[in-house]
């Protein structure tokens, strides 16, 4: 026993010694060359290549049984059917950073043609994705991008510009082109919301929107109760208010709930970004005429066509290459392999029952 005690002491002393010596020199953040060499694409694109049939296209969302990603991959399944390919859905039960890696490894072993992945951690999946690409598999990321040197293309659901413009268009339409509008946002420092609000302000400064007046931006902190009270406050402070624009799913639902139960119903319009399932009752009872969000099913659909175009050699993921994605039409690859889905989908009383998410 004494002997092992000494041995352990020696070991810890030795490690401290190593530590002391190593502290003097070595590889640091500044001296490191950084990331792994990326898999080379090499091949050039042939825009006239035919889309191959029988492609094995596998979806790896952040985790299985998440309602939102279920809708995304359902669009992928439809597209793979149209492409006469083999659809596969795999994924971990938890959304932890590393649990996707085993699944990527399995897909490499199964010699899939395309992996469509929503990365839980942009870097943790990187070595495996590059192994996949070295094995000839095309990698398309969606929802949450992997580091850009380990995927061929990324499906971006919407640009900041697209969202901001669409919010102002809806507000202007609902206000009849003139009058007071207010914004009910998430937190004062929410990155996405602030970027959208900046675009909205730029849009509102344009001549065609000169008669629209943004009177206040309120913050509901993405908390249902707080958002509800802020909506109430806005309507009391600005009796002439015509539209509340809420670019957050929590805010729009809370504001709609308040208005639908008050005598402002029918006089003040609510719009913004919302989930059809949360907004259905307010659309049905007339409180909300129109709101928007990207259609998750289209993300999965576009990803399948992108993967097929990559695997068929139509595109290689370089900026400026063009391809056609079935019912969604033509797409051009943007900088860093990004493909933007397009303007958000608008939901109204007519079409809301077609969506379930």
């Amino acid at each position, binding site marked *: *026993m004494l*002997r*092992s*005690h000494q041995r*352990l002491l020696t070991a*810890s002393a030795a*490690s*401290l010694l*190593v*530590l002391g010596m*190593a*502290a003097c*020199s*070595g*590889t*640091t*953040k*500044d001296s*490191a*060359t*950084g*990331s*792994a*060499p990326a898999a080379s694409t090499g091949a050039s694109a042939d825009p006239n290549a035919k889309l191959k049939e029988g492609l094995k296209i596998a979806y790896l969302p952040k985790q*299985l049984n998440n309602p939102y990603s279920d809708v995304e991959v359902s669009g992928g399944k439809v597209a793979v059917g149209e492409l006469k390919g083999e659809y*596969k859905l*795999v*994924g*971990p*039960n*938890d959304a*932890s*950073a*590393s649990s996707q*890696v*085993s*699944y990527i*490894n*399995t897909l*490499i*072993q*199964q*010699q899939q043609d395309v992996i469509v992945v929503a990365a839980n*951690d*942009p*870097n*943790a999946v*990187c*070595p495996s994705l590059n192994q996949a690409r070295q094995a000839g598999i095309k990698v398309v990321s969606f929802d949450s991008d992997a*580091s850009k040197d380990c995927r061929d293309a990324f499906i971006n659901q919407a640009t900041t510009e697209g969202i901001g413009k669409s919010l102002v268009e809806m507000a202007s339409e609902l206000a009849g082109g003139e009058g007071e509008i207010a914004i009910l946002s998430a937190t004062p420092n929410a990155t996405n919301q602030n970027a959208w609000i900046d675009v909205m302000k730029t849009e509102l400064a344009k001549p065609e929107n000169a008669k629209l007046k943004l009177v206040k931006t309120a913050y509901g902190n993405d908390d249902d109760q707080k958002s509800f009270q802020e909506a109430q406050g806005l309507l009391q402070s600005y009796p002439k208010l015509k539209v509340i624009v809420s670019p957050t799913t929590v805010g729009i639902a809370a504001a709609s709930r308040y208005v639908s139960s008050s005598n402002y119903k029918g006089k003040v319009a609510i719009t913004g970004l919302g989930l059809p399932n949360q907004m259905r009752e307010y659309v049905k009872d007339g409180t909300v005429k129109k709101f928007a969000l990207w259609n998750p099913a289209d993300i999965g659909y576009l990803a399948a066509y992108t993967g097929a175009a990559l695997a068929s050699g139509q595109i290689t993921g370089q900026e400026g290459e063009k391809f056609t994605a079935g019912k969604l039409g033509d797409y051009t690859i943007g900088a860093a392999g990004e493909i933007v889905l397009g303007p958000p989908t608008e939901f109204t009383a007519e079409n809301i029952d077609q969506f379930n998410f």
Partner: protein
Amino acid sequence: MSELKRRLASWDSIIILLTVVVLVVASLTISNFGTSRNFSFLTLDILPIVLVALPMTFIIVTGEIDLSVASTLGLASSIMGYLWNQGLSIESIIPICVVVGAILGALNGFLVTGLGLPSLAVTIGTLALYRGLAFVVLGDGAVADFPFNYTGWVTGSIGGGAIPNVLILIVALAVIFGVVLHATPFGRSLYAIGANAQAAHFSGIRVARTKFWLYVVSGAVAGLVGVLWTLRYSSARADNGAGLELAVVAAVLLGGVSIFGGKGSLPGVLAGVVLLAALQNALRLQDVSGQALNIVTGVLLVLSVLLPNIASSIRSNWQRRKLRQAAAI
């Protein structure tokens, strides 16, 4: 004693045999299982579990448990990311992480042996505590820009061939732990402690001190695995390795180590680790869903506890009847 030994040996050999059968059947029937690339994937999947399982076996043999290992791993990973961001060299960060692990293990050891608290309660507490500290150190962020010659070494293989680099580490540590447990007086003393701590104490074994150092070693190994984990995924995160403690304890128990202490062998544990990982890998290649994988693992674990118990109760029944017959005559 020889009776006990025989039963022990038999459970070990059942598990080892089962592992070999699974490996052979999977290689023959599942395409893409028996390839060298899959072998390296399998080795990387096994790496954290097998390394943490080595000291865990020692601890469970003495009748204690350490559930804080995965959180120690996460905290080491967080500290690694934090220090890397501070501009320290990776060559000094790695030993620091191992020492941090050892210190965290020492705290466990002190609470269990110094204050005499039950290890289950202590290490459930430090499981939460260390994971919490990991989030304090690194928050929700991730540090990813580790040097490629280190991250590439962990995922790479010797000379680009079929043998993964980390296999050397696994084999070296497994041999050291195996020799210490099965071929030294210190190793035998662990079984004595697990079988009866009081008797061990009266026969001159320093029970508390031995256990204390086991926790230190367990922490140090968890710290090292935190480094390897971070390098493998090139991502230092506070949530790294969450839930790993259950996979480790599962493999150790499946390998025939008794949760009550005093029984078990390292070859059995190694087979348990490989069996679980190979089964999961093979079933996943066959597109079996994650939920079904959990069910298979669960059933195996229940059987691993149930079968030896049934076997021993049958045996003791049979012996009792024999004794009664002898008495009747």
